[in-house]
């Protein structure tokens, strides 16, 4: 009985502290159709906002060039964008269950935050 209580306590502590995401979990989320749908909308919103920002904003040229390609063909970019968002840790996706129940707001914040980096990865 004491052992069961101890195990339960350890499980609860583990849940409370937020277990580290595994690559397998992040991969599964990045491949999840529900998550990819969320990412597509967030990505398009991030890019639409980029197209209206001032040219003098740092990094605008790189972002705007990338976003022009994104807005012409969003579905092409979703797999790559979703993989990056699922794998990054600055705005970690949680929970890592599939189908995705990640809050849209969390996806949007991550999309906005990663747009400059992703635009740099795919510069022409």
């Amino acid at each position: 009985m004491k052992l069961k209580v101890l195990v339960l306590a350890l499980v609860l502590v583990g849940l409370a502290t937020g277990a580290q995401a595994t690559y397998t979990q992040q991969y599964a989320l990045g491949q999840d159709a529900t998550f990819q749908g969320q990412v597509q909308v967030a990505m398009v919103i991030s890019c639409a906002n980029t197209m209206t920002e001032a040219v003098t904003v740092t990094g605008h040229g790189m972002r705007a060039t990338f976003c022009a390609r994104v807005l012409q063909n969003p579905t092409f970019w979703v797999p790559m964008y979703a993989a990056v968002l699922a794998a990054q840790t600055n705005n970690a996706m949680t929970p890592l269950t599939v189908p995705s129940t990640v809050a849209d707001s969390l996806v949007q914040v991550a999309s906005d935050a990663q747009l400059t980096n992703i635009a740099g990865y795919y510069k022409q």
Partner: protein
Amino acid sequence: MKRLLLVLCLAFSASSAQAAVTFDANATAPCSSNSVNLAVAGMPCQTLTITAAMSNPAVICQVNLSNQTVTTPVLTWDSGGSNQTMDFIGGRNTTSGTGRAELWGRVNPASGNKLAKYTAAAGTSDIDINCVSWSGVDATGGATSFPHFTSAIGTSAAPSVTITSAVGNATMDSTVNDTSTLSAPTKTQTFIDNAPNLFSGGGSRAAGAASNVHAWTLALGSSNWASVGTDILADGGGGGCTAKPTLTLLGVGNCGG
């Protein structure tokens, strides 16, 4: 009499120290990093090994930044050792809010494998640093050793800067843009870095000529670019006696540069 003057000039030119600027070494790769807080740690860069015991050595560093408003930057050669402050030769921003090209120089730098470090009072930036060493450079320093600073900006796929120089001297440029990848320098490439998130940049070098065009190709015509260039003056005032012999020449033995 004219014949005598000509002979004297030619003899003087031949015997005086008309050293040509000679390439020594280029960094094997540029130091490159994204989002560096220049006020905290700066950008340390294990750049290159300068050959010891060269005559009149100098080092020129090509710098590209995303941030156009870095506060009071300093580039130090042999950081952590003799800490030699480099001369700011010049810089230029692109017409957009992103991208800046700079050139820094130092005569008589400490030789050996040395650390160049770019620091600032404030500013976070993507940054590239690439240093090149030369011998046979005028030892005065500053704008005397690195004259004819010039710059150009544009929005196109063809960055280019034209540097006034002379035979016996050398020229270098630093070029940055805010949008697309850089390639195909018309002069000897010292570095290209298309990896930074916020810019792509490169640098090149060439032997001196009256007018040296350092040009590049960008993938996209919508790119905002800036290019800066400098001449590197040869010890003795530049090679190639192109001036006609005069009494003045007899006095100073300087063929211009």
